[in-house]
């Protein structure tokens, strides 16, 4: 309805819509061509990649799936002996807990801050919000030291070495910690907006906080949780800094994104490996994005406008 009104309003015409259409579509084409180029390149034969531009290949198509087979399962070269499949699996193994843990913990904290009011809860909320902008870089070294050496005051060990550096747990934990400020902030906005009457009716009926959390807050927060979960999933999947710092870069734990970054540095690795490898890496985020776009955009919007 609102949209229809807008279309009939001459005042909305800042530029005539023809110019707008041209600008939008030209920009869209410019924006899409680089990805298309990578996609086409990844299907080209190894020896043809350097000799023929991808837009020429489109005119005389002679494509192969060999690159994907080699990159997935390994092609015997030193840089990619066993393929990217183990790293792809590592990415899944890293991303699932690193999405689930912070969101569950953040939902609980957000509920407490919004509905179990106490002295200083406002201050605490702002403090957590403020932590959001502390750069990751401020935490990397001390956190790594905590994992490898434990915590000391003077020479007294007050916390044992966790021994999880270079282990999956050593990647889940930092991701969980770093995600909390934003997740708590966004979920607090969402949960604080739940209808007061509903919550109060439940308390009056004698429901405790745990019941209200499970029976009312969780089901009603699903849309908010879904948006933030998708956002966090993509963040972890696409992360490089945490992976480089806390995963040792080995086949056992390193995610595919950091493997891809290391392939770029090796001049021996060919363009076929890079293009197919890159497309395998970005395929999962793209599928998530196109199939769950609405939630994804909502999660982003929630972060900045209210």
């Amino acid at each position, binding site marked *: 309805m*609102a949209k229809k009104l807008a279309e009939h309003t001459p005042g909305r015409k*800042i530029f005539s819509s023809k110019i707008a259409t041209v600008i939008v579509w030209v920009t869209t084409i410019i924006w899409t061509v680089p990805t298309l180029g990578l996609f086409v390149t990844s299907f080209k034969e190894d020896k043809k990649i350097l000799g023929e531009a991808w837009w020429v290949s489109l005119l005389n198509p002679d494509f192969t799936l060999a690159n994907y087979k080699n990159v997935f399962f390994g092609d015997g070269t030193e840089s990619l002996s066993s393929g990217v499949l183990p790293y792809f699996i590592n990415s899944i193994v890293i991303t699932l807990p690193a999405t689930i843990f912070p969101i569950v913990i953040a939902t609980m904290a957000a*509920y407490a801050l919004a509905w179990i009011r106490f002295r200083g809860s406002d201050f605490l909320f702002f403090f957590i919000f403020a932590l959001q902008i502390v750069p990751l870089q*401020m935490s990397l070294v001390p956190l790594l030291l905590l994992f490898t050496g434990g915590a000391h005051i003077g020479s007294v060990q007050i916390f044992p070495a966790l021994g999880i550096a270079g282990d999956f747990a050593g990647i889940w934990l930092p991701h969980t*910690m770093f995600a909390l400020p934003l997740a708590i902030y966004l979920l607090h906005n969402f949960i604080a907006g739940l209808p007061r009457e509903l919550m109060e009716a439940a308390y009056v009926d004698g429901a405790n906080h*745990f019941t209200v959390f499970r029976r009312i807050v969780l089901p009603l927060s699903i849309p908010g949780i879904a948006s933030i979960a998708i956002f966090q999933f993509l963040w972890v999947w696409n992360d490089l800094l945490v992976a480089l710092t806390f995963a040792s870069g080995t086949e056992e734990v390193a995610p595919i994104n950091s493997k891809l970054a290391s392939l*770029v540095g090796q001049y021996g690795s060919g363009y076929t490996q890079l293009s197919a490898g*890159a497309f395998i890496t970005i395929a999962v985020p793209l599928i998530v994005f196109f199939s769950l*776009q609405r939630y994804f955009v909502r999660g982003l919007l929630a972060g900045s406008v209210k």
Partner: protein
Amino acid sequence: MSDFLSANLPKFTSVLTVIAAFFFILALIFAIAGRANGKKARPIALVIFLAPALLLLLAGLVIPGVRTILFSFMNPDSNEFIGWGNYQWMLEDPNVKTIMFNTILWVLVVPLFTAALGLLLAVMLDRIKHESIPKSLLFMPMAISFVGASIIFKFVYEYNEPGDVQIGLLSAVVEFFGFTPSDWMLSKPLNTFLLMIIYVWTQMGFGMVILSAAIKGVPSDIVEASALDGAHGWRLFSNVTFPMVKGTFIVVLATGVVGALKVFDIVRTMTGGNFSTNVLANEMYSQTFVQFDQGKGSALAVILFLLVTPILIYNIRSLRRERAH
């Protein structure tokens, strides 16, 4: 195949076990704590809901943050205080001068470009039919990692010797218009701007979507009334639409400044910080994990933190204002 299974199956079973254990423990705690009643019920609930988050924030952000500040006054191995030495190094080292210059360049150019382009497209999208397809294609790069985006653009910026076939789009276009392409990643200072394009390419959609929502929120009657008063085109935009989305525009700018300050993946993947393209966040990583100098690395992290602090204060202020309404 069986090799592969024996290497990777345990990963899946252990991750599923960990997730199941997490929910089982949570359910157990909820069940036990839920039995408490009377005066103790509220404080117990409070602790259970808040303590995990607070402990993780304390161990993961607060204490490490303080320790990094301390490390920045210490030697490479963080076992001896050396005063302001690491900061002095920053003021004197010529490499750091380049790094600071580049970082400032990123902060000046990238947010403005990202936000302005986002605004332009948001305004244009408001004027066309079938906006959803271009909108999602323009937004799509947001889902791609900076590493992936860098590789996409590595192919765009690919350069061959003159006479050979140019397989990089940029080189081919430049050649098409009769100029001689150069090895882009080695050409200073153009290379820094080419890296910035990768960032703008991925992040522009963010500003566009947010500003597009804001523009749709401008009440039609206001636009209509101004149109009746004779405001059209640029005047309508600058006097009516822009003032109403200014707040959102500043949010997009602020987000861009933080992003530009922290840019790391793109520089590391494309040039490794070589050829005068290095920036603060990449140098922080190199000092810490390549040179193994925790002192210098921490000092760089502290500078990064100090630079984003004004934006943090601004954001908290606007949140407070928003809450007051």
